[in-house]
Structure formats: structure tokens, C-alpha cells
């Protein structure tokens, strides 16, 4: 892959300013979602390993149903 062929490819026929940001953004979003999912899973597992506090705070109090 000669150097200038690479440069021609990178230039995207003059549309580099549009093509690369679009793909970069797509990659960023997908990678971001994947990493977030992994981190979320680890956070949930860690929270479960610590002795659960009484009445976990995740599900909020129920205001619609006064006892």
C-alpha cells in the first residue's frame, strides 16, 4: 500500500471532512455504549457483593400509595 495511495484514500476524494467525522462519531458512540455496559455490569456486581443496605435506594419510595 504505497504512501500516496494511502493519502488518496484518507482524502476521500475531497470529502474527508464529512466521511471521517461521521465514522468516527459512529465508532465513538458504539464503543462508548459497549464500555458503559461493561462498567455498569461491574458496578451492579460490586453493589451486590457489598451487604445490601436495608430497603435498597435503587427503587424509589412509593408516593402514589399512602398506606
Amino acid at each position: 500500500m504505497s504512501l500516496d495511495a494511502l493519502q488518496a484514500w484518507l482524502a476521500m476524494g475531497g470529502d474527508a471532512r464529512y466521511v471521517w467525522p461521521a465514522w468516527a462519531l459512529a465508532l465513538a458512540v458504539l464503543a462508548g455504549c459497549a464500555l458503559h455496559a461493561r462498567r455498569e455490569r461491574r458496578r451492579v456486581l460490586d453493589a451486590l457483593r457489598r451487604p445490601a443496605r436495608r430497603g435498597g435506594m435503587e427503587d424509589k419510595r412509593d408516593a402514589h400509595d399512602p398506606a
Partner: protein
Amino acid sequence: MWRAIHRLGSPAIFYAVAGRLQPWCWALAIALLLAGSLWGLVWAPADYQQGDSVRILYVHVPTALLAQSVFVLLAAAGGVFLVWRIKLADMLAAAIAPFGALMTLLALVSGALWGLPTWGTWWVWDARLTSMLIQLFLYLGVIALRGAYTAAESGARASALLALVGVVNVPIIKFSVDWWQTLHQAATFSLVRPPSMPASMWLPLLVMVAGFYAFFVALALTRTRSEILRRESRTRWVRERVARTTGKAAR
């Protein structure tokens, strides 16, 4: 059939089944996306009119399709949750809604980027871009409503109902916006309806679409499993599973 729904509907079984499927989905998604990207960026021909900017098609079309499919799935899950009260359906809906909104946003931005060289401006009131913009607001409404109630169960049910109302309106909105565009603009080159494509262009597109959908399935499985752990944290089977995985790295 009823037995099957209830059996699959049990979070424990779904958690196990999804756990086994998940690694394969991730692998498939990454493979397809890599192949599709290389094919779309390198080997696929440029368009004789638009030149290389058409390559944004390989990002814009999959995200637009996925954005619509996720909304339909959101409504279906909402319907199942409202009618049969299967909690797992709501866990799935909570897990996939943000991703659907992100895909809509990505579709909008890539659409604008694709239109830029042709129109010279960032935003044009093109029919499909406009429909996607409205769909983004529908997504935000569904997500916002879920968190608006103090009782998590009520928020979930309200959000499910809004998703159902929304999915009925999506085709109506699309029809009215298309109709509206024919009134207001001469049929300019409608960016998003790609010109009839030769096989060399739509094959990589097919691979990219498959890659995005595989990615969505993998993400949905992972996030739903986390949601299950979070909501069923007080059940015995969750405590056992967590205890078992404390030893080796959590899969």
C-alpha cells in the same frame, strides 16, 4: 404457548440463556462491523455523483433503521409488560431505550454530514431527517416519563403506554411529513433515499446493517442482564450467582 411465555419471562432463565448467547453476539457484531467498515470504506466504489461522501451511507442507513426498529421493540415490550405484567419486558425496555435515542441522534448527525457537501448547510428540512428529529423527541419523552414518577413501577407502566401511543403515531408522522415536504419543496435530490445501488454498494451496506443489529442484540442482552441483577438483587438466585462469581472474574 402461555407456559413458554411465562417460562422465558422468568428473569433467572433469561439471565442464564442471555449469558451464554452474549459472547457470541459481541464477537459476531465486532466481526461484521469490521468487515463492513473495511468493505464500505475501501473496496466499495464511490458514487459517480456524490463521490466518496456517499460512504456515510454505511453509517446513516443502519442507524436510521435501528432507531426505528428499537422504537417498535420498545412499544412491543411495553405492550407485553402492560398486558401480561411480565417484568422482564420492562427490564428490556429500560435497557434499550437510551440506545435507541442514541441511534436516532447518530442517524441525524450522519444525515446532516452526508447532506453537507450536497446542500452546503448543516440542516435541511428533508422529509426523512425531519421524521427522525420528531422520533428523537418521542424517545426523549419515553425516557423522561420513566424517571418522572416516584414509584418505579408506575413510571415503567406510563413509559410503556407512551411507547405504544408513540409507535401508532410514527407512521402517521412519517406520512404527514412526507406529504408536507412535497408541498414545500420541489422534489430536490432526497438525500436519504439512496439512488438505486449496484450490488457492489449494497452488499457492504447489508453487512454494516447486520453488524449494527448484532451490536444492538449484544448490548441489549448485556444491559438487560445488569438490569435483572439490579432489580432482583434481593432474590436468592441472584445472591447465589453473585457469590459464585466472586471467586473468578465476573463473566
